[in-house]
């Protein structure tokens, strides 16, 4: 298990105009975040008493964590269901998960009024609060993700003892990760169920926990397609289309169940009348359900589109966009409150954090054995 220095040196850092822009936007975002910590939310955001949650909660937190669900889904598929053929995409997916959760924690630090007290979550408990559960799950799951990812680092460093230890507890770790994810992915939905009179009936549901869980699984899988797309475009890794197309076959099932239940709910509760009324809620509802749910189902059900690089990538984009639209509709656009558009500072932080995530991902791809070539020889060495 040598440090494959030669291999690392061969990896080219994708330093082009795009990457330079990512660095600049990342730095700008961090700068604005520091400015926000010094001068406060009032001076930097368009949040107000009538709009206490904005872009950071609905997009960065709720959508970010939802899109990171690929980490637990892939871990379960490979380690629990023993479908080893998907192994090559486990590492980048877990890394994406870890980065997303780190970014979610950073977002929380930017959004909290009293960020220096985030540790209060550990000492003051309120088991009635969905956010309490989410806080704990995110803390624990970020640790689990770090541990799940640590073998990659240990391999690169050639540390055999920690590698052995972590290998010995892999399965319990994976099970913990799957459980924690199921808990907080659904509890993010529970968080919004307490707003029955504030969220528009087309978007509010008592079944939020189930919806959030299902859409997170679908979008998490779609995210793995996006990662492979990014890695193949940027680093020239092979786009594992056959493997990915087999993986995304699950998406029509997951989104199909979601679509059927949500549509049934619409008619059972009588809320379809808001669709007939028209207006912005009806239009957005249709965009969300058609563009973010039906279109991905069609894309991934058809084996031709699924096995086509463009088809599968577009399908993934629609699935991810569907999740983002779903979260933003429920937690921002159709939640009662004062008029709100994010300030440039809020946008800068959101963009900056996303860029920070890209920088972290690219650094890992460059320095760590992210895409192992599982030749028999390599397996023996492990």
């Amino acid at each position, binding site marked *: 298990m040598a440090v494959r220095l030669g291999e690392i040196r061969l990896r080219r850092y994708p330093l082009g105009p795009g990457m330079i822009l990512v660095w600049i936007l990342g730095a700008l975002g961090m700068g604005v975040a520091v400015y926000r910590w010094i001068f*406060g*939310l*009032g*001076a930097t955001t368009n949040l*107000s*008493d009538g709009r*206490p*949650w904005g872009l950071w909660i609905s997009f960065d937190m709720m959508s970010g964590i939802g899109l990171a669900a690929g980490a637990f889904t892939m871990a*379960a598929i490979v*380690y*629990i269901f*023993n479908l*080893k*053929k998907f*192994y090559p995409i486990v590492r980048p997916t877990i890394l994406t998960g870890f980065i997303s959760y780190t970014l979610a924690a950073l977002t929380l630090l930017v959004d*909290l*009024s*009293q*960020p*220096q*007290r985030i540790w*209060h*979550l550990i000492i*003051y*408990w*309120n088991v*009635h*609060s*969905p*956010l309490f559960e*989410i*806080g704990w799950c995110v803390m624990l799951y970020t640790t689990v993700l770090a541990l799940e990812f640590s073998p990659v680092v240990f391999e690169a460093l050639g540390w055999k003892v920690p590698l052995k230890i972590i*290998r010995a507890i892999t*399965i319990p770790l994976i099970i913990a990760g799957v*459980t924690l994810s199921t*808990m907080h992915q*659904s*509890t993010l939905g*529970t968080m919004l169920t*307490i*707003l029955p*009179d*504030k969220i528009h009936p087309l978007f509010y549901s*008592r*079944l939020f926990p*189930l919806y959030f869980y299902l859409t997170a699984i679908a979008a998490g899988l779609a995210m793995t397609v996006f990662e492979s797309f990014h890695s193949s475009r940027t680093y020239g890794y092979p786009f594992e289309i056959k*493997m990915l197309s087999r993986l995304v076959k699950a998406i029509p099932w997951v989104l199909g169940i979601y679509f059927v239940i949500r549509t*049934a*709910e619409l008619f*059972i*509760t009588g809320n379809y009348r808001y669709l007939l009324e028209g207006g912005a809620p009806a239009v957005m509802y249709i965009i969300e359900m058609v563009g973010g749910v039906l279109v991905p189902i069609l894309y991934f059900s058809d084996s031709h589109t699924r096995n086509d690089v463009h088809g599968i990538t577009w399908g993934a984009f629609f699935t991810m966009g569907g999740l983002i639209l779903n979260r933003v509709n429920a937690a921002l656009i159709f*939640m009662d*409150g004062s008029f709100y558009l994010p300030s440039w500072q809020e946008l800068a932080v959101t963009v900056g954090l996303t860029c920070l995530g890209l920088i972290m991902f690219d650094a890992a791809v460059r320095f760590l054995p992210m895409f*192992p*070539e*599982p030749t*028999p020889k*390599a*397996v023996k060495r*492990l």
Partner: protein
Amino acid sequence: MPISRRDFIKVAGAGLGALALPASPVSANSIEKNTDETASMLYDSTICVGCRACQVACKRRAGLEHQVDPSGLYEMPHDLDSRTWTIIKLYKDQETDSFVKNQCMHCVHPACVSVCPVGALEKLESGPVIYHSERCIGCRYCMAACPFSVPKTEWEKPLPFIQKCDFCADRQENGEQPKCSEACPTGALIYGTRKAMLDIARTRLVGEDSYVQHIYGEKEAGGTSMLYISDLDFTKLGFPEQSDVSLPDITWPYMQGTLGVIGVMVTLSTAIYLRTHRKGQNGNNGNNGNNGDNQPPKGKEA
């Protein structure tokens, strides 16, 4: 259509619920709390003359900064905010006008208390909902969850806290009434037990046809400590049309279901793992007992 929705949840919960939904929702709050002897206030908009004595008395007692009009002569806040825990607002249309007092409703089942992740908000047995600023992390979930949008925050500060009416809990403990009701010169705002306030409100409604025959706060959001009667539609006075659902009752079954989710997910994952990793199973490296399963597969599958 609350009933059909509830029924639907039961059906869906039974079918698919094991993962994200507790199959049999049990509620901690569904047992009706006896609120008869808890502290309460009754505001009668037909008596209020809009003198704002309550508003000013509140600011004095809570040490809140005055907000003055451009001339600097009048205490003139525009809405509840971090420096205004209670406010008298005017409703006016072509035919009529009326004042209305806003402040924390001190719900019987407060959503804010239930959602606060660090327990910074507390519902006292005696009625008031109070805020422990030393715990607050500033997530502002209370602001989002409050059906009456009462909690406000100090946006202009680098480290803002939540600000809201505390029902003069300290004064009540000393046997005194809240400052606002004490200051009210007309009796538009009176203080007493919730039962006494409801009795007075009912008596007034029966005696006078001009009242809207509804006590706002008796059932809204599962009941509130602050009760209102008026001769105007409550939505005109700025009150939200609020269902009678106790909001914490919605989330609590899910939170209780968490333990079930843990149990189901751990058992299910372990069972599937054991089943898929039996000897001779495809994809297994055959290195049983030594966690060899966690290594990459031998052959590269396309």
